[in-house]
């Protein structure tokens, strides 16, 4: 537990130092939402129907930048190796990093919602439910994302490899998050929101458990 808190504190401090990057990543996500809206055209009904999908696509694209960046600092002077040799628990290092990335992506998701509302005329009054969807969806992105970012951080083509490995794995998370968000925006006459949320919980638990088990094998020789 001490190692986990130490790792989390370190990662939050690193993120705070790189906060300018968060603004850049938000700008990237917002730009993606803007471009997607051009693809739909001015029809407000179509825009509203596609809003949830584009919100999560924008978040997914922006997340690859954020996740890759989080391991950039670990690799510059092999700082992660230095912690492992102290020795710090690999599992604690993983959960510290994954929780920090989760917070980062949640913040990004919350910040992109007003952009979606403005560009797609798509809002909801169930803000708490929307926050829950973002929280669970980003949990499902950050856990495998952290693992794969660690795996690809030492490779030459990491900017290409990370999305290549991550995107197929998070399709179920993306699907459930888009459906749940869409139901909040467009209405839920059949009461389908709960099953999609349950699916998000299952995927989050699965990814967070596996990530903790596998991280040591990924970062150790």
């Amino acid at each position, binding site marked *: 537990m*001490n*190692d986990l*808190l*130490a790792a989390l*504190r*370190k990662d939050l*401090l*690193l993120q705070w*130092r*790189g906060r300018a990057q968060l603004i850049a990543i938000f700008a990237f996500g917002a730009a993606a939402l803007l471009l997607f809206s051009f693809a739909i055209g001015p029809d407000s009904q179509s825009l509203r129907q596609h809003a949830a999908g584009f919100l999560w696509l924008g978040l997914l694209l922006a997340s690859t930048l954020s996740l890759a960046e989080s391991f950039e*600092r670990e690799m*510059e*002077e*092999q*700082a992660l*190796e*230095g*912690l*492992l*040799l*102290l*020795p*710090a628990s690999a599992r604690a290092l993983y959960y510290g990093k994954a929780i920090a990335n989760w917070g980062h992506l949640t913040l990004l998701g919350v910040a992109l919602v007003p952009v979606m509302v403005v560009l797609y005329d798509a809002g909801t009054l169930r803000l708490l439910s929307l926050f829950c969807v973002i929280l669970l969806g980003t949990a499902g992105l950050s856990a495998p994302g952290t693992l794969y970012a660690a795996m690809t951080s030492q490779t030459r083509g990491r900017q290409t490899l990370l999305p290549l490995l991550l995107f197929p794995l998070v399709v179920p998370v993306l699907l459930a998050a888009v459906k749940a968000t869409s139901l909040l925006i467009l209405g839920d006459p059949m009461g389908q929101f709960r099953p999609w949320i349950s699916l998000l919980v299952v995927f989050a638990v699965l990814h967070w458990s596996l990530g903790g088990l596998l991280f040591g094998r990924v970062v150790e*020789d």
Partner: protein
Amino acid sequence: MIAVAAGGLCRRYGRRWALIEVTFDLFEGSLAMVTGRNGSGKSTLLRVLATAIRADQGSLEIFGHDARAERDAVREQTALLGHRTHLYEPLTALENLAVAARFVGGDRRRAALLARLEEVGLGDRGDDLVQTFSAGMRQRLALARVLQQRPRLVLLDEPYGHLDPPGFLLVDRFLQRLRQEGATVLMATHLVQRGRDICDRGLVLEAGRLVYAGPVGEMPAPLAADATPFAEGA
């Protein structure tokens, strides 16, 4: 007590063998140097001993702990100063020491960490970001981080690298201090004469093979060392 017992260590990168059948013992409290030409396997040997990388073949025991099966026990007693400093560039010097202190359970109060920085001549740069440091200052900070771990086995890869003449003396004092504290030290260096003056044991590697292990006084000079005299510093 034997601090390091290496038997037939082999390590390869792709098809190339970096270490071939390296066998030697180091007694606790000894101060040893390993020398050899560039690419002879010095850094690889230190990284294997630190458990940063695994040996492909052979056995390794550090203070009686098997390096493969009891890796964490080995790591608790070992510190490595490598070519890469293990520092976080966006953090300050004090924050870097605090991060390590939290994991090793050391004193992380500002005064204690500042005292550590004073020891390496960085007392007035504690609040500066590491990314603003020169290579020599980073090396000094990395040395402070090693001291923080209170290790029984210290592995130093080119500890004089990047340092100015006062920095050379700092490393000499650092080594003497480790000797007084009873730590076992293995240092990879090209500064053969300097190493002879300080160390009591010597190892020579050539193309991954250990060609000498014994008293430093009888240690042969590594190939080409005589032809190109090294700057031995202050």
